[in-house]
């Protein structure tokens, strides 16, 4: 009999670009169910439920406002510093939680992945999507504050760029997915990187204008500084909703290129590792 009469063939090695997106699409229901499962099980048997999604960024923002805004004076003048920090920290918060959650895909789900096959990319994708729900809650909360500031006549100027918000979100999601799956693919063998992630994310935050205003960066370092792909997204976000700073279009474009490159690398690495990770995890 001929080999090619079979629908599925499992071979030891897999080509680098053999990514089966069609199969992933067939499992779309599973992605949605995982999203639902993560969200439902996260808040089961809690009194406050999804309100917890607000409490964390709220406290972070208060700390940022007091320490970096009032004591250190790193917030820009004119804009209410609470709005400035809330805006930055929910955008950054989405990115960092996605990154930390996807980076443990293989290690945290080894039990289920060792029992049954489904396209492994289902897991990190569903993680990123389920974080969107918390983000949506936080975002509504932010809009309430924005509305309040507008009513009281504070210096906030939302402009038409807010229409770009979904693009910004997708951007953050893809970037965190890319970095996260690279980490998860590499940590199947070396756990060292998992240690780096938690404080790496912390350091990354300081390399991003979350706790301070971007105008504090000296002009000659600005180009280097803008290479951080999260920076243009955060500044864009603030520009759209608060009218603070400037949009940095060139840097934003570069950031997209970096994001796509990272994502591609991540998917390829992930794809490479997923087949035999059960033996090394």
């Amino acid at each position, binding site marked *: *009999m001929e*080999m090619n009469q*079979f*629908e*599925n*063939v*499992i*071979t*030891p090695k*897999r080509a680098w670009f053999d990514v089966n997106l069609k199969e992933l699409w*067939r*499992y779309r*229901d*599973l992605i*949605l*169910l995982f999203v*639902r*499962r993560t969200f*439902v*099980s996260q808040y*089961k*048997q809690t009194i406050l439920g999804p309100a917890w999604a607000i409490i964390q960024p709220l406290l972070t923002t208060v700390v940022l406002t007091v320490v970096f805004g009032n004591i250190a004076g790193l917030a820009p003048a004119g804009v209410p510093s609470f709005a400035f920090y809330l805006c930055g920290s929910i955008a950054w918060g989405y990115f960092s939680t996605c990154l930390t959650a996807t980076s443990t895909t293989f290690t945290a789900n080894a039990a*289920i*992945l*060792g*029992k*049954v*096959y*489904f396209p492994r990319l289902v897991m990190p994708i569903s993680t990123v999507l389920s974080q969107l729900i918390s983000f949506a809650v936080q975002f509504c909360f932010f809009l309430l504050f924005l509305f309040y500031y507008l009513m009281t006549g504070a210096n906030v100027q939302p402009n038409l760029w807010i229409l770009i918000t979904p693009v910004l979100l997708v951007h953050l999601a893809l970037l965190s997915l890319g970095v996260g799956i690279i980490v998860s693919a590499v940590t199947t*063998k*070396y*756990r*060292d*990187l998992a240690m780096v992630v938690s404080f790496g994310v912390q350091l990354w935050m300081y390399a991003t204008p979350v706790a301070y205003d971007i105008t504090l960066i000296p002009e000659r370092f600005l180009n280097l500084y803008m290479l951080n792909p999260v920076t243009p997204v955060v500044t864009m976000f603030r520009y759209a909703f608060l009218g603070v700073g400037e949009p940095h279009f060139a840097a934003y474009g570069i950031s997209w290129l970096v994001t796509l490159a990272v994502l591609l690398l991540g998917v390829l690495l992930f794809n490479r590792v997923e*087949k*035999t990770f*059960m*033996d*090394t995890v």
Partner: protein
Amino acid sequence: MQDIMIQFEHVSKEYRLGAIGGGTLRGDLQSLMARIRGKEDPNLQIGQKVYAGNPRFLALNDVSFSVKQGERVGIIGHNGAGKSTLLKLLSRVTGPTCGTISYNGRIASMLEVGTGFHPELTGRENVYMNGAILGMTKAEITKKFNDIVQFAEMENFIDTPVKRYSSGMYVKLAFAVAAHLDSDILVMDEVLAVGDMKFQQKCLGKMDDVSKNEGRTVLYVSHNMNTVRQLCTRCIVLDHGRIIFDGDTETGIGVYMNNRDDMQTIYDLSAKSSKPDPKATQAKILSLRIMNKDAALFQTGEELVFETDILARKHFEHLRFRFELRYADDVPVGTVPDIDLGVMESGERKTFQMRFDTSWLTRGKYRVYLVLFEKNEFGTCEDHDLVLPAFAFSIEDQNDITWNVNAWGHIKLPDIDFISVQ
């Protein structure tokens, strides 16, 4: 109907024993740097030229077979024969080291019941979850939902979180999902071991049904020969990663029963000891041979004759020997506490042939722990070598009465004598 559904071609799966990888990224980079600079690798053991890696182990060794549509194939073999590895490869949990596996259609694998069940979710939510994990779409599950619930006999509990379920309910629901999946190939690993008799029979019936009426192919791994006999039309026997038999079920089961690893009669015990360093003990049991049988299988009443080599590494006035008998489940049965082996000179090696009367023992599998010891001047025992277990044997009962092991134990006591009858 005779289409080939699954084909394994020279499939091997290799595992590295022990810890995997050089340990850390740092360690691997160190080795790499050293190699580039032509220096000695700091992670090598002294005298070693290349990093040999961990010892390797072939869980599957050049396995080839094919399965036709509608066949129900039982895969049997003792623990470690490679059954589960085979199913894991087929269900794509892990990849083969070499060889090709080809199959047609969709595989539903149940390597463990209830995979992906989340305790906080209700039965209904978990049915959807589990179904989706096994590759069904939401619409397909909805279509089959009532059948699933009915089969699992769970109508009343379907909206309760599964953390409140009993283990039986858990299994029933999970099996029902997998059995109702529209797959062409059903892969199952010992799932029927749980659940009550009635449900087991129902599951076997269902599998029979899907295979006969829907033409689905079933691959079934089990240690329970009765279910294999009942379900399978063909049997593949694995031993140490190789196929040693492929053919009809009865013959296959026969091959498996006679090929039990633990029926061996020659044991090399020189490296086996509970002492931390078997090479440094003051006395060592080197080997053991069962002399009067080709396989360690005895009828009740038969004698067990064995020979053991013992090495003394110092002078002993009285080296002593203890024979501890345990049942297969490690429950102690009895002990011959103190056999005096007499004087042993330092460096002397003696072979002792001994005889053990098995007529006390009832049918089943026994393991023997051997201990070498010495009584010191205070009268307490000082153990020199402990081999736990040293060897195993099985007893078959010729008597036709059923011995109730749970209530009666493993030892048949001598008859009670009548002193008088009035």
